[in-house]
């Protein structure tokens, strides 16, 4: 790429981007006790009849209740999926460039697996005449179609007043025919696959 469309974009610090990565297992359990207790040949009978005194039940039950809980898809999860996509012209991610922002992701999901859910993502091009906005949008769409269950409808828009030809871009981004035509273009797919290669 010889001429960069925007040579000096504003860059955010990766560590400050919202993310859920790595926060999952923050409260670590002491692994020792269940491990030791499982060595006992009496382990099974002991847990089955409610044992006298204390016994391992405590930590186990807390784990179990945790397991049952349904972690619904939320905006942060979607953000985590797309913020690590690389920008086509900078060696930076869309999150770093603030092309995608957590507050610009809207999710309409009843949680019912039989109902259709909707994700609306508004992207902010780094400059108002960014001709790559459509490519970025396409990249996000491909990523989400791969990573979200099929019941999600994905709508990608350019954020209001951030692009000169907002309507055109919006139209192009959500036109099924054009999207699927684009996905059959090998050249384009290659670029997109490069963009997605940085996804974590």
């Amino acid at each position, binding site marked *: 790429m010889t001429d960069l469309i925007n040579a000096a974009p504003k860059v955010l610090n990766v560590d400050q981007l919202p993310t859920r990565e790595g926060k999952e297992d923050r409260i670590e359990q*002491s692994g020792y006790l269940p491990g030791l207790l499982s060595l006992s040949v009496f382990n099974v009978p002991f847990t089955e009849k409610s044992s006298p005194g204390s016994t391992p039940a405590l930590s186990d039950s807390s784990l179990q209740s945790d397991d049952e809980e349904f972690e619904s898809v939320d905006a942060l999860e979607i953000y985590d999926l797309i913020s690590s996509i690389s920008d086509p012209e900078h060696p930076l991610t869309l999150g770093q460039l603030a092309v995608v922002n957590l507050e610009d992701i809207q999710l309409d999901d009843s949680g019912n697996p039989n109902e259709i859910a909707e994700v609306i993502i508004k992207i902010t091009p780094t400059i108002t005449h960014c001709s790559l906005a459509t490519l970025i949008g396409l990249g996000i769409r491909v990523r989400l179609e791969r990573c979200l269950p099929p019941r999600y409808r994905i709508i990608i828009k350019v954020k209001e007043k951030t692009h000169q030809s907002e309507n055109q871009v919006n139209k192009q981004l959500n036109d099924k025919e054009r999207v699927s035509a684009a996905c059959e273009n090998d050249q384009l797919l290659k670029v997109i696959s490069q963009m997605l290669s940085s996804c974590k």
Partner: protein
Amino acid sequence: MDLQLSQWVSQFMASENDPPCEEIAKAVIEKRISLLQLIKTLGSHLTDETPHIRSTAVGCLSNTLAKIERLNRADIEVIAKFYIGKLDDNDVMSNTLVGLRALTSLKNFNPALLESVLTSVQEKYEPASFLAATRYQSFLLLETIYQKHLDFILANLNDLFVKVFIHISTNEKDPRNLLISFSLNKQISSTLQVENFAEDLFDNAFCYFPVSFKPPPNSPYSIASHDLKTGLRQVFAATPLFAKDLFPNILEKLTSTSPAVKLDVLQTLNLCLDTYDNDTIQEYWLTLYNALKFEVLYNDLANIVELADIEKLSTEDDLVFKEVIALFKNLPKKFTDEQIIKNLQIMLEELKEYLHISHKYFKQTVLLLSVMATSKLSVYNHIVGEVLPVLLTDEPSTVVDEKNLATALNFFINPDYPESKLSQYKDDILVVLSKGLMSSSNVETTLKCICIRSLVNLSFILDTQEVASVISNLSELLLSTMKNEKDPIFQETLNAFTNISATMPNVVLETTLPLLLSKLPNESSSEIDLELVRNVLNVVVNISHSKLLLDSIIVRLLSVYERLLNGRVVTMDYYYFLLNSIYLLLSNYPELLSKDYADRVIPQITSLTIVNYRLSKESPVYLNERILDQCGKIIRLIICKLELIHHQKILDDAVDTFLLGSDSPLFSTSLGLEISLVSKPPTLVSLFNKFLSAVSKDCPLKIEPLDVLSSLVEITRDSKHFESLFERMGFLELICLLANKYISDSDLEKILNELSETIDLQSSDSLGTLEVMAWITKSLVLSNSPLAMKYQEYFFSLLEIPSVASVSPKLLEVLIAEVSELEVNKRDKKIINLNVRLLYKQKFYNIMLPKIIEGYRNCEQASKETYLLLLSLILNHVHQREIILSHLENILPLILQIIQSDNAKSRNSGLEILNLTIESNCMLIKPHLHSIISRLLAITKDNSDLNGQINALLCLKEIGISKIPLSQLQPFRTTIINQTVAVLSHKKRKVRKLAADVRQIYYELEQS
């Protein structure tokens, strides 16, 4: 003798071999032959028509001379004349030069001859007509003359010598010759009088600058470009006489676009700056400054927040910058005090226009000045006095300006000068930085980080009160940012505390610690915010960088523990975090631990815990054994760090307390508690185990260990004796510990035999006994005892006995399972707490795995499950993958069976090993791809087994990125992508994410 000589001569004249100069020289030294005889014998050869023969003959003479230390003066003179005459003969030049060199280095060589030697070389030797090797000899000759006769040359032949050097070194191209030429030039320029020749000598060297030489791959001399560069650089630095030519010429090269050239220029300048005298530098400093300032001004300094950051730069461009900075650091060192004022005035006059916060060269200018200020105190004071008033009157209007101002101020904070003009401005600086720290929002990370760093740097001139207020501000910041550990502001503040806690522990103790601890929920809090507890304790653990802090933090955390216990707080995780923090503190700062921790902390913890345990059946400790376990870990850690001499006392006290039921110093006060593990088992055995496992095995038990073991075995055999599983496991551990440390193999064998006689495999009552046997065998396995094999076999034989088939794999698992009490103390090699051999695991696997594979093949269908279960159980304990790598191929068929199993636990251990197999040797699974992938996909759909789903997805991921040929994977691509769609709606986020990753990999399969 003559005959011998002529034999030698004809011998080598005929052959290509080296002449036997060694022997000839020896003969000459021993006066068996005279030099004259040699020349006579060589006679006709010396004047032979064939150049080759002439050259060899001269060579013979020269090499002989080189082996001789002294000759009489007359001989020397004759031979010298002979060689001078030979200089006309180009064909023998190389050997002539060798001869001359040999001659000039003889002990009684008369320096008066040098004039004619040098003159003849100058007149008759034309370097251009000879090969590099010959030219090399000419340099060697000159070098020898220089080294041997420097005084004479200085007095008599100064000009002639320099001229000869210029003559022979002009137009030299060979790297080896250049190296010696540079070294000679350096020596000449720095010792001889070269005023008249400075320009020629300089030109002779400068024409090679910059060195772009790359050694050819087959170079015999192994000369690196670096050697030439350094050699050349030293020439330039040899005398200030070069300055007038060097500076204009070399600065011109600075315009080069190649960073390598720039770096070379700068390094040369730096060297010259070091060696040239003050007057020369004073003459040229302005030229230098004018040329170099742009290297700083035009640089983008985005990543530099303090001067120390410059040291961290490492790319090629950055190295150039680093060198410029080094130059500016050195430059003012050459100024005298009067010059400083004058010179700096000129600079400041010029830079003044940039010294406004919003100017685009502001930061660069400040950096330049602050770097020069580091050179010496007088310069520092002058610059600070001139610049800071300007900076501090500027009013920043934007955040960027504020950032620049804070950075600028930080540049000038230099703890190397504790007494300087800076203190006059400290109040103003403090205001600016504190404002940046407190008022701006947390979004402005960089500004805050700079302010934090600057404030910490500034602390060396602040008084106690000011420091206290800074630290209190920083503490507030810690509290407000600790929610996100990755937040750069939090990180920066924590870093700041690393520094502060080490230098000013008192202030941290008075300011930060109370603030932090006050945030911890107390015993009467109705709801405990565990996230808050975790964050606060995390900070506490990370700021204790001094003994004073560590001591008082531990005291305070223990008092929190006491309050919680007394308040009967039942949030177990709170205890866990608290005790874990104490543990982390102690293990993070092992160098701060000392004997008094054993005297103070251990009794406190044991008393608190035991008293609470005995209080009632509702007490927190009684309700949760994790508290006991954590306390034990802390105790174990402290003992492990103790000197050997204290171990015996600790062990005796523990035995008093736990086995004999008497009072001991382990309690802070006498409580009249009678504990006796042997007669009535309470859960406290876990605590005693930590004591026993930590102390050195050389400390004897004060009561007969065999008796203790026997009674323990009696108690433990019957599972009805125990209130909880935890307690029973504690006893088994204790049995293993005692057996391992104190009981001989023969005694153990006796016990084991007695036990095995009582076993009735058909009755479930024997289970307890079997388990006790397993734990005793474990102690044998750990110590690699030859006896271990026998009982290993015994347990193995149980696998096919239906009544115990369900438990026997577990019994074998016990043998290899890692238990924290049975870990070797790592403090130092001298204190050995347990008999644990290094490779015991390896040995176990090497014996067991083939047996399992064989047993599986030969057994009845009904027992196959048992073997698979055993394999999956023991594979759970492979913690160093090397142990298992060599067995992967053989156990793979069994692994493939295990993952078909419906038992989630064994399936998971199978999946883990499968993952390891794919990662380390993916080709093994290639023939089974179809069955593996379809099984993995099936497991991903089993919502009842979360870990199985995760492991299966990990395996699929590993397959996708493995080296299995694309053509083999391609057929599965669509299936995998389609079948993982369902997992995308999994209730767990972690699983969904993994599924997304797997799909991404397979989508990209064709792109790669």
